């Protein structure tokens, strides 16, 4: 699937697709409403958010300590650890593990990190077949499509589109019935689970004090991945650590409620090492790949709070920009408000530098974030970074600087008001302008007129003694 080069082009393409817009608006407004209801169910959600934020900040402040503790526990449990400084290192580690076990078929549970590193591509290049087992991801894989939402990856495909894909790619009759499609997926997937040597998962939460990884899912595919194949590889970003099981409980109290309005997802599983003596299933070999890929840079910098993110997608569901354009417009692996930060900082995408500007800073995301990431403030920081490095759109800072200079003197300010009136009033009819001149032309290119400034400003009327 080709990605258009600029954010604006991608957004325009998405906006032109009415079906997509309705699907996204419907899905996100429902989810946001459910999230709000689920939050009300907690004894003191604001206090809990604050605690979650503090736990994350404390962990990030002491990440070296907790990471080392986590690694020590993994080693004690007989888990092999791979430290990956870059995305390529991470992929190479997984390929090496696959080769070690002569694996040609792998099953995979949904992991944003593996999307970020393009793991599937690396595995395919190495001759290893990998099947996505999460239903939405499986669907997208069939179509060579990409996820457009963190927790509901195929939200941009409606029922007919799903049925079309199954019919075409699995050679089954077209049946636009969700139950029938799920039954097909269940049967197809069982064969894969059974025959795969290797399972790859992500990690929602990694507990330092016990060496436990936590996976959070609904379909059963995660549990299948970790019980059937011989080898389990868990790939995690280094920021996923929490100090204790009790801290994990706090995160879990917020995660389900924020993501899918579930108090707990159907399957929440805690894996502490490979299978033990006398157990009949579970992976016999377990590997954890700990990935940096830009995270330590963020940790060292001013944007470190983005590392609190627990990938719940509450910010996507409430964001009016995301609601309009959907996930693909962002061009990368992480969409939505958090994606405007994670994409330029981590995963990258064509025209990532535009992303921090494509926001009204409305702050809805901040209100919805279970770990209180102040996304609007971080967007302002990114704009500041860009301005300092002279990157990003150049006309905007120039124009704004000039406008602020004009405003520093009341005389210049008043003169500017007069000039603006002189420029705009002649173009107006009945106090409205239907075609604004640059740099305001975009205003009226939308379905929107610009009000003409009245003949006298407030300050003029006051000066004339009329008020």
């Amino acid at each position: 699937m080709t990605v258009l080069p600029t954010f604006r082009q991608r957004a325009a393409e998405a906006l032109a697709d009415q079906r997509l817009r309705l699907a996204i608006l419907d899905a996100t407004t429902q989810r946001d409403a459910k999230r709000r209801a689920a939050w009300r169910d907690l004894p003191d959600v604001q206090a809990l958010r604050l605690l979650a934020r503090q736990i994350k900040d404390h962990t990030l402040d002491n990440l070296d300590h907790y990471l080392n503790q986590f690694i020590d526990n993994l080693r004690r449990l007989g888990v092999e650890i791979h430290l990956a400084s870059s995305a390529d290192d991470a992929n190479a580690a997984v390929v090496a593990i696959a080769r070690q076990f002569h694996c040609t078929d792998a099953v995979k549970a949904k992991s944003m990190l593996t999307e970020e590193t393009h793991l599937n591509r690396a595995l395919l290049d190495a001759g290893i077949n990998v099947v996505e087992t999460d239903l939405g991801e499986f669907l997208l894989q069939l179509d060579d499509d990409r996820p457009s939402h963190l927790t509901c990856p195929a939200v941009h495909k409606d029922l007919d589109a799903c049925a079309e894909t199954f019919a075409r790619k699995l050679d089954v009759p077209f049946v636009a019935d969700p139950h029938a499609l799920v039954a097909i997926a269940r049967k197809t997937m069982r064969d894969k689970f059974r025959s795969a040597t290797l399972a790859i998962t992500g990690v929602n939460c990694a507990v330092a004090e016990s060496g436990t990884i936590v996976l959070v899912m609904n379909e059963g595919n995660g549990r299948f991945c970790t019980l059937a194949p011989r080898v389990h590889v868990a790939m995690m970003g280094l920021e996923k650590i929490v100090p204790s099981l009790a801290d994990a409980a706090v995160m879990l109290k917020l995660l389900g409620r924020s993501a899918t309005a579930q108090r707990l997802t159907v399957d929440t599983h805690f894996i502490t090492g490979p299978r033990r003596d006398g157990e009949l299933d579970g992976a016999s070999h377990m590997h954890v790949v700990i990935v940096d890929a830009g995270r330590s840079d963020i940790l060292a910098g001013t944007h470190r709070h983005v590392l609190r993110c627990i990938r719940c997608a509450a910010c996507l569901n409430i964001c009016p920009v995301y609601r309009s354009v959907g996930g693909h417009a962002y061009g990368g692996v992480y969409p939505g408000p958090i994606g405007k930060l994670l994409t330029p900082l981590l995963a990258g995408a064509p025209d990532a530098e535009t992303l921090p500007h494509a926001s009204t800073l409305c702050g809805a995301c901040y209100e919805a974030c279970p770990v209180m990431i102040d996304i609007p403030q971080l967007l302002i920081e990114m704009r500041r970074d860009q301005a300092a490095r002279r990157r990003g759109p150049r006309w905007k800072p120039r124009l704004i600087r000039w406008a602020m200079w004009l405003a520093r003197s009341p005389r210049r300010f008043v003169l500017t008001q007069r000039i603006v009136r002189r420029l705009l009033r002649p173009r107006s009819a009945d106090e409205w302008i239907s075609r604004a001149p640059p740099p305001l032309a975009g205003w009226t290119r939308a379905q929107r007129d610009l009000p003409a400034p009245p003949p006298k400003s407030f300050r003029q009327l006051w000066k004339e003694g009329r008020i």
Partner: protein
Amino acid sequence: MAHPIHGNRRLLDRVAEATNQRNMAPSPAHDENIIRTPIDEPLIDRFAAEAQAVGMSVSRTTEASLIDAIQSLRRTINDELTLVEPALAAHRPELKTLPRSLTHPDQDQLYAAELGIVGASAGIAETGTIVRDAGPGRPRSFALLPMTIIVVLDASTLLPDLYDALARHRPNQLPSETVLITGPSKSSDIGMKLVTGVHGPGVVHILIVQDA
């Protein structure tokens, strides 16, 4: 023997650099009043209500009536091939006498079974959750592969809150896996319509044994 660490230790150095000389925030104290959901009714009642709310069926029974309860549930799915968890059968040997049931299936039987009868390590009342620790005689697959599962839960193992469930074991004494099951397997990824029984069980029956 401790296993090796592969890859470049530069990752750990980078993290150490990035966290160096930072104002260390204190380890946040946990105020349980904001973490735990208050429960002002018997745990068994809350558990039953929550488990039903997420789509599992819940019945209360006694030790003496357990086998009858299981048999009548089995009849609703025509006595199909059944897996019985060995650890559960060890305590309740009459389970081994159920027709068409296996405690040690081969792979084909494992994948063909329509029903799994398993035990639970605990239950969480707040969310209607079944807690299963893995271990010898408690295969993970018996609670996942069949389309229908029956979970035998001792009422005495009910806990109020998730917070309690994660405090059951010491950090260095955890089982290889603990699963918290809160409902049948489901997805609404296809056309935003909810469907159960995706990769895991679509039907979950919980039998709470009150006098175990």
